[in-house]
């Protein structure tokens, strides 16, 4: 349990920060210079995975190691849902955090990784409170909304964050005798439902992810209750990644200060091209359960 505590504590140190997707050491350096609090090393950003199709897997360990040696901030990398051997590989190369991610093609449609088997921390995506608590029950030390990665469309992240916050408020205001029924209804472990009832929050840090493309998007997610944000395709698929990255960092810190957000939103060049969720035939957020 000491190890789990340390892993939850690292997530606390990421709070108020921006975790950026990077595909090579050069992008990692740009992200660090712009003020990212961590980077996510992957071969293709979600927008490209979406466009190119095929099976998306864990990245080449060599490429992850190169990114790790290029920066001083924590490095995360993704494994496929349920692919515990990919996770064993990432633990062996000594990165800081694993994202068991719906952005990659799932390796198992029934079971997520038993994260208690690992020393390394995991972050997992969730659409609602039940899903978040199931992942925490499996040992996740950090949660993020799934959103809809690679779309540049924040609507799903908003839906997921609002849903989680709404369910947390409901549980907090329920009498204790209703908790077991709630646990049954949302398919979540009872002890974690009880924690939410007592504390009025998730037992781990909760970030926003999936579709964040502008400083305003980042601030929106923070005002809705996110403790930090992941930006995937939004930075390096935009016209001016350096400038946009640092603007999103400032907007995340000063999310309650519209003057600062206005200032940093000026003259950023074009944002990534966005996609309407209704036009998608493949929703990544529906992967995992």
């Amino acid at each position, binding site marked *: 349990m*000491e190890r789990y*505590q*340390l*892993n939850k*504590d*690292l997530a*606390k*140190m*990421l*709070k*108020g*920060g921006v975790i950026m997707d990077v595909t090579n050491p050069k992008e990692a350096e740009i992200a*660090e*210079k*712009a*003020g*990212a*609090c*961590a980077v996510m090393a992957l071969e293709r950003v979600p927008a490209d995975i979406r466009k190119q199709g095929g099976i998306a897997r864990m990245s080449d360990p060599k490429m992850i190691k190169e990114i790790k040696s290029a920066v*001083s*901030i*924590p490095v995360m990398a993704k494994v496929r849902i349920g692919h515990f051997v990919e996770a064993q590989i990432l*633990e062996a190369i*000594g*990165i*800081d*955090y694993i994202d068991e991610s719906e952005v990659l093609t799932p390796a198992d449609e029934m079971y997520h990784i038993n994260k208690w088997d690992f*020393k*390394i*921390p995991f972050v997992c995506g969730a659409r609602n409170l039940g899903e978040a608590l199931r992942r925490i029950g499996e040992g996740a030390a950090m949660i993020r909304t799934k959103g809809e990665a690679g779309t540049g469309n924040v609507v799903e992240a908003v839906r997921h964050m609002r849903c989680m916050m709404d369910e947390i408020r409901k549980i907090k205001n329920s009498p204790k005798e209703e908790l077991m029924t709630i646990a049954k209804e949302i398919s979540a472990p009872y002890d974690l439902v009880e924690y939410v009832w007592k504390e009025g929050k998730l037992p781990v840090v909760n970030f926003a992810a999936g579709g964040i493309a502008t400083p305003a998007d980042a601030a929106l997610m923070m005002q809705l209750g996110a403790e930090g944000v992941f930006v995937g395709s939004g930075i390096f698929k935009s016209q001016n990644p350096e400038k946009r990255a*640092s603007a999103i*960092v*400032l907007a995340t*810190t*000063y999310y309650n*200060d519209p003057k600062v957000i206005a200032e940093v939103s000026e003259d950023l060049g074009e944002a990534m091209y966005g996609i309407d969720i209704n036009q998608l035939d493949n929703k990544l957020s529906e992967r995992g359960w």
Partner: protein
Amino acid sequence: MKIGVLSLQGGVIEHLNHIRNLEADCIEVKEAEDLDEINGIILPGGESTTMGLLLKERGILNPLKQKILNGLPAWGTCAGMILLAKEIENDFRKHLEVMNIKVKRNAYGSQLDSFICHSKVEKVSKEEIPLIFIRAPYIVEVGNDVDVIFEIDGKVVAAREKNMLATSFHPELSTSLEFHKYFLNMCTENLKKLN
């Protein structure tokens, strides 16, 4: 008395809660103006690169540096220690450069090397305190005026120089309030001196 916690990124709320539990006032410091109302500042854990950048970007770096040089009590935990240090062994970036210590970032390695130990830190408290190290730095060299508060395996992990306190570990992540009490005492003594 009012304590400020630098609130740009990282573990801010944990410090605020500890200070509130000791029944002292505290505020989040997000702009240079916020510095005018505080009697002590905590620089929390997080990423020093992120905080350092935002300090410069928002014009807080120099006013804060002047305040600390003029005697404002300051305590850096983990990344906060890096912000205070005059020298950083493995980084070209420097930040406040006020404390006469040379530090090494991520000195223990990656998250897999993070650890907790329980120790009595005699200069701070008679109680045994949990010391939580998360991708922690340590101090490799201390200047003349620096008092070493605690060492682990020959590595300096807590030190004080006049109005400045630096710890590699995170007392705000444990339930112990001992280090926060110690820092509040530093702030009270400084206030007495000013009056």
